[in-house]
């Protein structure tokens, strides 16, 4: 080794040592342990080491788990769609309609601030708003739209979707905002110059160029909503159990860690698949703007 190479590798070891050890010890090994436990067997009163695929078989054979997975996927997808439907116009507005950078930065902060307010509280407030005696019912009765408080707003999947969408909108707005911000205004002018009005310019230039942000935001929102277990317990009803609650149950009441670990492993794989797909399509959408 030349002295230079020696310096190179010394630097590498010095800088990389701590992160490598930490990541292996507290990230890789725990996931590995989780994987290992997913092959164990539940045996009253606890569970014992083993190597068998029963837990995975149960996850896929017992319709209740598939049903929960599907329901969770459905809700996470709806949350992503609604967050996108509200978040995209918001980001678009900030970038292309707001004229001065000062106002834009201020409004952006205004969107991001809720992110800094306790997640739990943001979920729980919806209980006050949507409840039978809540703000929404009071408002509707006051306006005379309804004369009996409705029980339809709280303790069901709609409430969960409203709450989760609310919680995750900032995660949708941020990447889209960043993507839109990177689009040179020049390109929009070029489109106008070539005879295309604002609407088609949006479809043909702005949307494709912000696709990376949309994918990133949707992936993040989907994954976060997919793993949530707080909203169901606060605003969800009897039909609102999500996969994270199922995992929680296995580590709680059911005391079946092996099955819970198997479920978690399945979630892990699912998320990895989603991320990989999203990275692919993001890369497809990621266009070198330089």
């Amino acid at each position, binding site marked *: 080794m030349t002295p230079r190479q020696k310096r190179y590798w010394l630097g590498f070891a010095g800088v990389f040592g701590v992160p490598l050890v930490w990541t292996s010890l507290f990230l890789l090994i725990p996931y590995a342990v989780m994987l290992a436990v997913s092959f164990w067997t539940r045996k009253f009163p606890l569970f014992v080491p083993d190597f068998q695929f029963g837990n995975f078989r149960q996850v896929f054979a017992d319709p209740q788990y598939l*049903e929960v997975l599907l329901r969770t996927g459905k809700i996470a997808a709806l949350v992503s769609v609604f967050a996108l439907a509200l978040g995209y116009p918001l980001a678009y507005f900030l970038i292309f309609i707001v004229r001065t950078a000062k106002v834009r930065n201020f409004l952006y902060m205004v969107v991001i601030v809720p992110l800094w307010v306790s997640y739990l509280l943001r979920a729980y407030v919806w209980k006050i708003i949507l409840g039978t005696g809540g703000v929404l019912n009071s408002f509707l009765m006051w306006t005379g739209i309804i004369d009996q408080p409705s*029980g339809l707003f709280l303790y069901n999947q709609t409430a969960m979707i409203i709450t989760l969408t609310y919680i995750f909108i900032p995660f949708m707005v941020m990447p889209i905002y960043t993507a839109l911000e990177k689009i040179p205004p020049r390109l929009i002018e070029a489109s106008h110059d070539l005879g295309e009005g604002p609407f088609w310019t949006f479809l043909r230039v702005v949307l494709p160029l912000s696709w990376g942000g949309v994918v990133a935001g949707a992936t993040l929102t989907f994954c976060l909503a997919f793993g949530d277990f707080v909203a169901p317990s606060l605003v969800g009803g009897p039909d609102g159990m999500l996969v994270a609650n199922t995992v929680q149950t296995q580590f709680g009441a059911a005391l079946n860690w092996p099955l819970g670990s198997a479920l978690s492993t399945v979630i892990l794989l699912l998320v990895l698949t989603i991320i990989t797909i999203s990275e692919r399509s993001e890369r497809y959408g990621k266009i070198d703007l330089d």
Partner: protein
Amino acid sequence: GELNILTWEGYADPSFIKDFETKSSCKVSATYVGSNDDFAPKLAAGSGVYDIIVPSIDTIGQMRLAGFVDSIDLKKVPEFGQVHAKFRSNPDVTVNGEVWAVPLIWGSVSVLYRTDKVTQPNSIKVLWNPEYKGRISLWDDKSAIYWAARMLGYDNIYDLDDTQLATIKARLIEQKPLVRKYWSTAGELAQLFLNDEVWVSNAWTGLIAKEIRKGGKPFTVAEVDPAEKSEGWMDSMMLVKGSPNTDCSYQFINYMLSAKGQCGIVGSTDYFPTNPVSAKTCLPAEEARSRHLDDPGYVDSLVMWQMPKRLDAYLETWNAVKAAM
């Protein structure tokens, strides 16, 4: 010293715990469970967290079998002998002459309803009554299975077979659209009533109704024993294995068996004391009667909890119900 107790709402109320803390110089911090199924996982997750747990009669056996607890050194609990013999001799409290649990308090689970909305129910079937669609609640606990079993008229509720469980599961799933929310703590159920969300539910007799009445809403609630009988429960104190604070633990156990402890907890929960000797010294006669101090036979009018023979099957059934649409 420090004492970490895994227990139920109302069991560590400052009204009587403060007194213990000053007397013993043991600081009590309580964590509340919402179901007996919360004990095992909390203890399984790691030792060294809790010193005393207060599971119900159907769960203490599981705690012992899982090795989560130590047996009780009776020399250190002089008043143990005053506890209702019925509880002392319970096969899960005393096993092969060794005592594992110190009974603390007992009571029933009955039907709680709003008198202005629900005509007085005489059967558990009220919880399946479509008339009250969206206004029904049910305790989020494996005991839901007992309730369904009793509604169906099964009498082997702690030893149900697979077909029975399947039927029960179907009935519970059938009930889901009627249910507004499964409740998991007393406070939650009280709030559900107070916020107009729920009109009828099964409930721990005493505490919850008391809480609702404190809310000052312009309606009244009542508790009723259905024709299928109410359920009976008894909660005992157990020593967590490996707890470094056994000294404080024994002081606590003794305090809770004393007059201050028994009347304190009765006062905060409206449940029934297990030590009639000390309770009698502090309860007015009228209350002593309504708390069945001299009437342990009342227990026989209840369906007393036992550990189900196939706990796992019960849990699985209940979880499947919750997971279903």
